[in-house]
């Protein structure tokens, strides 16, 4: 009989792990709480640094996992620990007996309205990175007019590296996402003046630095080192943004037609609940705690429970995919060791 493997989350990590496990001859079961596969990446339009369409990536992953059992709009109701396995009850009434579970639960985007000083949900012209991606995908958003903004800004680190927001971790991908989105906006509206307000730029990945240089040199995007202190609205309904230009030591003020907040990656509340059912520990940053943060990132401290992707911390798409593959291999090795154990026990009798 094929071994059941329960994958929690149908985002890119879950899909990639499922397709690898199918190839290894197992029976992966994906449980996804939303109505579609692909997670956050499915909401995105193009991916840095090569502007790959997100849809292409997601559809390739979905095709790879098509043989898996997939439950959409389904959550985990409760989990019972059996002798050497788990009985998982789903919200649709199905119960699954499995020895192996893979958390591919991903992350949540920080709720930008919590940073009231930036005016998300207060002023009409403030949006988030994910709102902007939705506009790239659909072309519908009342905040962006047909002729486009004449001046716009990006605010980096919204809800990341922010103790006041109780998220001290860096979200890793927003720096490069802001640069990508700024370039995309400049391509659509070449006359727009685009500012990026940053406190630190972390261009760690492959070709990220080139992307940043190109944003500066070829697209003329203006980077201002200084955190936005306050956003207000003037009588014409435009945004007045204040910050300190920490390089010159002077306060700056600028009037903008559009402001995009780079909402950070935070741990998912629902994931913590599910982890709680299994008494899985959380790390000091609020994400799931791996057995070892260097050598064993895809293993949980509990036998038979594995992690892949952003449930253990912010990650890029290629990092998540690599982790999903590595988790699949870990699971494969674990199953082999289980059956070897079983064989040696029965021989001994």
């Amino acid at each position, binding site marked *: 009989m094929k071994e059941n493997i329960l994958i929690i989350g149908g985002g890119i990590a879950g899909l990639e792990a499922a397709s690898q496990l199918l190839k290894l001859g197992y029976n992966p079961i994906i449980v996804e709480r939303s109505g579609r596969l692909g997670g956050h990446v499915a909401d995105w339009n193009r991916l840095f640094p090569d502007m790959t369409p997100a849809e292409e990536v997601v559809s390739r992953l979905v095709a790879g996992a098509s043989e898996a059992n997939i439950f959409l709009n389904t959550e985990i109701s409760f989990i019972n620990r059996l002798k050497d396995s788990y009985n998982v009850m789903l919200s649709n009434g199905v119960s699954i007996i499995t020895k192996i579970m893979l958390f591919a639960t991903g992350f949540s985007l920080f709720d930008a309205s919590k940073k009231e000083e930036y005016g998300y949900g207060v002023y009409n012209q403030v949006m988030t990175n994910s709102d902007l991606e939705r506009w790239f995908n659909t072309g519908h958003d009342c905040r962006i007019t047909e002729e486009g903004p004449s001046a716009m800004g990006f605010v980096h680190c919204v809800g990341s590296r922010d103790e006041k927001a109780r998220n001290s971790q860096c979200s890793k991908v927003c720096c490069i996402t802001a640069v990508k989105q700024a370039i995309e906006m400049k391509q659509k509206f070449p006359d727009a003046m685009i500012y990026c307000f940053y406190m630190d730029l972390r261009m760690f990945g492959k070709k990220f630095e080139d992307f940043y240089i190109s944003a500066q040199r070829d697209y003329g995007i*203006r980077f201002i080192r200084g955190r936005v202190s306050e956003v207000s609205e003037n009588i014409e309904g435009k945004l007045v943004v204040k910050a300190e*230009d920490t*390089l010159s030591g*002077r306060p700056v*003020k600028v009037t903008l037609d559009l402001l995009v907040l780079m909402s950070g990656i935070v741990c998912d509340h629902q994931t913590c609940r599910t982890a709680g059912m299994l008494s899985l520990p959380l790390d000091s940053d609020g994400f799931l705690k791996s057995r070892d943060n260097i050598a064993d990132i895809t293993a949980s401290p509990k036998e038979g429970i594995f992690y892949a992707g952003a449930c253990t911390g912010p990650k890029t798409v290629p990092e998540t995919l690599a982790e999903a593959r590595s988790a699949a291999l870990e699971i494969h090795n674990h199953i082999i060791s289980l059956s070897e154990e079983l064989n040696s026990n029965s021989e001994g009798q």
Partner: protein
Amino acid sequence: MDFGFKISPSSAVNLDNVDLSLYDRLHEVEPDIAKCIACGSCSASCPAGRFSGMSMRKVILDLQRGRQKEAVKMLSGCMLCGKCLMVCPRGINTRHLILAICKLYGED
């Protein structure tokens, strides 16, 4: 009437009123100026800096924030030795840039 005291003018930069047309022309001839990440290597290695207050990093920033008078004044302390060119991590040809600024902003 002068009462002998006044409120000091605000040091704030209002980016709405900044005229960057000259800077944009400079950017066309020297696109590398936008690559500056304000690391300060140029200023740290500048032999004139200690005596004249010259700082290439500040010159570039002033130009980007529309404070061209200050920038051009500061450049008068430059001896064109080119040390900053050798240390710039972004590979900006600072010496060439300084000459382009002088040409464009009409100073020598």
